[in-house]
């Protein structure tokens, strides 16, 4: 018997394997075909060929470095030094760094890396580049008169009648009629802790600790600890306080949206679950309401709500709340349909009314499942709240889009991105920890 059936089985197995192989090759071919269709229709080739590699390099270098602007106003012959060229980063009443030296007759010499030297003499400025020579520029009301070493103009010099630009790895110089500016690049996030107006700028951690525990009070009577905190928190360049508020606002949107939705959904779910619903019509209507809330989607809710409530975190919270009421309503009513009836009957047999039956017969059964789902959504909504914040104008999403739109504060963009990732990982860890506690019991 087994002898006779053996060969057909092998044949069957072989043909089965061939069919399986064909199917899997077919699926792979389909995937490949679809991806190549996308590649062509999205025009990957041209988009990447025309990618702004200059933007990419600005982004990369700017996110890790900062530049200091030394500006000479050619009308009043005054020098000013400012980090990122911003008023907030200006060196006022403070020792200038050693690479700039001002001499008594109002002229300056700048020593950049690799022996690049720039020296001022009245309006005239000389940029000596090792291996190339001296570039001399004289800005005046008529324009910028430039003299270069003999030979062809190299590509790092950009010259016109009214402007001279020299870009070297050690630094950049730009000369116009009105002003001469030197840009020096350095690695790091300057002024991250304190700006130049703070007494604590440039101090090391141990020096700060020494200040905190020193017996010498501050001249203005404040304690060192509170002044250090104040200068850090209200740092006008990095605005740590505002950023912390924005992060909190994003978490708040996610929290209110998720848990608000959970509260509404648990109440509605009892009327939408087959084994609890008092009326079939109501159940049908609620189910369609849940589908509608989910189907309209967060984006459209966000738009509709921001018309009514204006920009801000409340709008974002309500948008998440509405969408998730639909999601949770569906999930919860399904969980209710799967409850064990024995426990309910047990509670009912003691003569309790329907409210108490639900409280002691149903809620304990579904609570761990529901809470773990809600906590799971809490984490994903933290990410959604970042995007929604960008649209409704609230939270860290707003700060991020604003910083990206300026296209120059890439170090701030990097800072926000790092904080967003840390925030999401924190919420993920927290929600995972609580879910594990819930499932284990205690």
């Amino acid at each position, binding site marked *: 018997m087994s002898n006779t059936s053996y060969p057909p089985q092998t044949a069957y197995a072989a043909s089965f394997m061939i069919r399986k192989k064909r199917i899997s090759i077919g699926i792979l071919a389909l995937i490949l075909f679809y991806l190549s269709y996308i590649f062509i229709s999205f025009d990957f080739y041209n988009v990447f060929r025309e990618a702004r590699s200059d933007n990419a390099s600005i982004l990369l270098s700017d996110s890790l470095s900062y530049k200091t602007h030394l500006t000479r106003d050619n009308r009043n012959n005054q020098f000013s030094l400012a980090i990122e060229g911003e008023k907030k980063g200006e060196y006022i009443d403070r020792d200038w760094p050693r690479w700039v030296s001002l001499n008594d007759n109002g002229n300056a010499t700048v020593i950049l890396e690799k022996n690049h030297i720039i020296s001022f003499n009245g309006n005239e400025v000389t940029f000596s580049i090792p291996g190339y020579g001296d570039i001399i520029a004289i800005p005046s009301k008529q324009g910028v008169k430039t003299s270069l070493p003999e030979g062809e103009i190299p590509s790092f010099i950009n010259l016109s009648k009214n402007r001279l630009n020299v870009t070297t790895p050690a630094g950049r110089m730009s000369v116009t009629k009105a002003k001469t500016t030197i840009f020096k690049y350095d690695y790091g996030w300057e002024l991250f802790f304190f700006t130049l107006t703070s007494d604590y700028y440039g101090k090391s951690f141990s020096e700060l600790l020494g200040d905190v525990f020193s017996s010498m009070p501050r001249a203005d009577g404040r304690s060192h600890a509170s002044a250090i905190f104040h200068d850090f928190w209200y740092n006008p360049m990095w605005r740590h306080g505002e950023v912390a508020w924005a992060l909190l606002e994003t978490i708040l949107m996610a929290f209110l949206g998720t848990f608000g939705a959970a509260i509404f959904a648990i109440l509605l779910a009892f009327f939408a679950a087959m084994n609890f619903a008092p009326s079939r019509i109501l159940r049908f209507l609620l189910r369609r309401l849940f589908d509608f809330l989910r189907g309209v989607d967060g984006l459209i809710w966000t738009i509709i709500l921001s018309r009514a409530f204006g920009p801000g975190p*409340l709008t974002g919270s309500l948008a998440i709340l509405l969408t998730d009421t639909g999601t949770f309503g569906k999930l919860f009513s399904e969980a209710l349909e799967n409850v064990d009836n024995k426990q309910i009957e047990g509670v009912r047999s003691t003569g309790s009314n329907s409210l108490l039956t639900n409280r002691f017969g149903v809620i304990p059964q579904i609570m761990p499942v529901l809470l773990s789902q809600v906590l799971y959504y809490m984490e994903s909504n933290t990410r959604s709240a970042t995007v929604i914040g960008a649209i409704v104008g609230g939270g860290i999403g707003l700060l991020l889009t604003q910083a990206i739109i300026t296209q120059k504060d890439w170090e701030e963009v990097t800072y926000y991105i790092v904080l967003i990732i840390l925030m999401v990982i924190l919420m993920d860890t927290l929600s995972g920890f609580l879910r594990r506690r819930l499932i284990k019991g205690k």
Partner: protein
Amino acid sequence: MQPKTFGHQIRRSAYFAHLAKRRIYSSIIILVFTMLIISGFIVANDRNAGGFWDGINQLGDFPYEVLSEAGEKFLELPSHLLTYLPALLETIHIAGAATLVGALSGLFLSLLSTRGLAYWPWAIPIFRRMMDIMRAIPEIVIALVLIFVLGGGPIPAMIAIAFHTAGALGKQFSEVNENVDTKPIDGLLSVGAKWFQRMWLGVVPQVSPNYLSYGLMRFEINIRASAILGFVGAGGIGYELRNTMSWGKGKYDEAAAIFILLFLTIVLVDQLSSLVRSRLIGTTG
């Protein structure tokens, strides 16, 4: 008789003491939670441009304007639906391609980060952390940075969503992999199969129904994500929606057409995916 009743009473009082303690704990938790929600809403309300009670009265205004304008130009609606169909298809393609690329990367990431299957067992924690970080980055972050480099359009959105999807699916896939039956893998190993062959022939057939189910769920999520990314400048129907919205009155009929298209797509994909998923893994949901 006496001691037995006594012991029973001890147990009874201990039980009630325990119950009372638990009730106090849960009351405290509920109280703190309620206060957090209420104060949270108050803070959110204070920091919002418009207040809650003003807003709730105006809630119907915008949908009314949109609907009435769409009603006035009712006959133009079908042509608007046709006009925005390509943009809708772009949104769907962004989600589809991103899900596919993300799932393929997630497949490898998950195989590389599951104990017993990994090619380099010492690298499991590295791939796990990698997936955690990929999952944690919201799509908008990558999309906005890529828009700056590549310009607006579907590609930044696709890459951003694919990146996040790879992390998210990678984690779900590796949870599936943990429960895989290792006998087929051992069998393949005994006949000298290479790592790729062991995975492809021993693991993938076991897990593919669950993978497909998670993939479909992710596709549904990604359609929503690709619509919302469009609104911040990454192409597709979201981008068209933002343009009609910033035009304001006069183009609300077109906005209505986009709302309808988006709503129908999401509901359709939602229903289809839950149907297929219940077939695949035999559960509702």
